[in-house]
């Protein structure tokens, strides 16, 4: 029966036998196994870990640089805001106050802020009276520099800042700097995510190999 011969070589089938005889020349000739190595090197996992540690170090460094830049920018902004606030508040309460602006603000922005402060004008003097902003006098310096702005002044300025309307808090330049900072943060977080995914992929492959053993 033809099918049986094709399956398990029982019976006879001249056609299939003819094909077998014709194709026999293509059969495997080398019957000896290949020459095997005397020593098999262990499977190396280190390159993956080296890549992982390098990627991690690079990500940490990038993150640290970005965080430092953000911190510097925030501290700079805080000082500017405190200076602007003092500039806005001082002319209303004491004519002896003659703080010269020591930041890159314009007259127009200061005037604009003064107008915006009108609504909360009654509260400001009370809060300001508790502050220790040094007036221009005999013993006080004529210009309030950044170095002389104390931590308490910053806190007080921050408290007053909350009572100010929203649109008076940040200038155009400050808003631009803030936006750029947010953009840098988002870029850093996306890169960190890429590194994490890559590391997780390598770890999965390593665990698969270990399971294979």
């Amino acid at each position, binding site marked *: 029966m*033809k*099918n049986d011969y*094709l*399956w*398990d*070589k029982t019976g006879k089938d001249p*056609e*299939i036998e003819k*094909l*077998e005889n*014709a*194709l*026999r*020349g*293509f*059969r*495997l*000739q*080398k*019957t000896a*196994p*290949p020459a*095997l*190595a005397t020593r*098999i090197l262990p*499977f190396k996992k280190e390159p993956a870990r080296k890549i992982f540690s390098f990627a991690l170090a690079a990500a940490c460094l990038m993150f640290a640089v970005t965080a430092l830049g953000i911190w510097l920018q925030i501290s700079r902004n805080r000082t500017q805001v405190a200076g602007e606030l003092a500039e806005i508040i001082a002319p209303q309460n004491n004519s002896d106050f003659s703080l010269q602006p020591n930041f890159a603000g314009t007259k127009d922005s200061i005037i604009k802020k003064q107008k915006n402060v009108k609504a909360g004008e009654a509260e400001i003097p009370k809060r300001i009276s508790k502050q220790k902003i040094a007036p221009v006098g005999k013993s006080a310096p004529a210009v309030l520099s950044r170095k002389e702005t104390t931590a308490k002044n910053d806190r007080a300025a921050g408290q007053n800042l909350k009572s100010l309307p929203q649109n008076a808090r940040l200038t155009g330049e400050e808003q631009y700097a803030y936006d750029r900072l947010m953009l840098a943060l988002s870029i850093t977080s996306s890169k960190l995510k890429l590194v994490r995914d890559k590391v997780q992929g390598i770890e999965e*492959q390593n665990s*698969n*190999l270990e*399971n*294979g*053993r």
Partner: protein
Amino acid sequence: MSENGMTGNIFYFARSEAKATTSTAPETATAQARLVESACAGDREAFGEIYKLFAPTVHGIVLAKVPRDEADDITQNVFLVAYKNLHTLRNRNAVGAWLVTIARNLSANFYRAARPTEELSEELSHQDCPHAEAREILAAIRALPETYKETLILRLVEGMTGPEIAERTGLKPESVRVNLHRGMKMLRRKLGIEEKE
């Protein structure tokens, strides 16, 4: 072929092995597993037994894809790669299917690597080569679909029976039978042989 190119496919081998349907008889599977374990422990004779057992299967799979002149070398390379990576084999009973997967991958890599070739003269091309008719038959088998051509080459070229093909490749006997029957039908049509009932 560079060793880096061969060993670079190790992850593919380990993943592909899981897809094979193991259909070996329990005694055979145990014997194969024992051979693999001995070979992993460093027993070269055990690996030699594995070679004797599976070399015709691997050669047949390779011959279905690459030129005849390259088939023997690639077969040897398959076992070299297998020897180096035997410790990664998860299912010791599926060594046949694993070797078949390596053979298919190395055959595919053969065409990916660009090789400059020179045409042989008529005289040289016929040395150590079977008759022209045989080459035509082999070409006709190679033109068949993947599953049919591998099974037919194992049966007609390597002289394996259907149960042996199922055992060595990890396929189900029913699948091998269907592939043989349908492949033979298509081959007859290509060669113009009338089918006798």
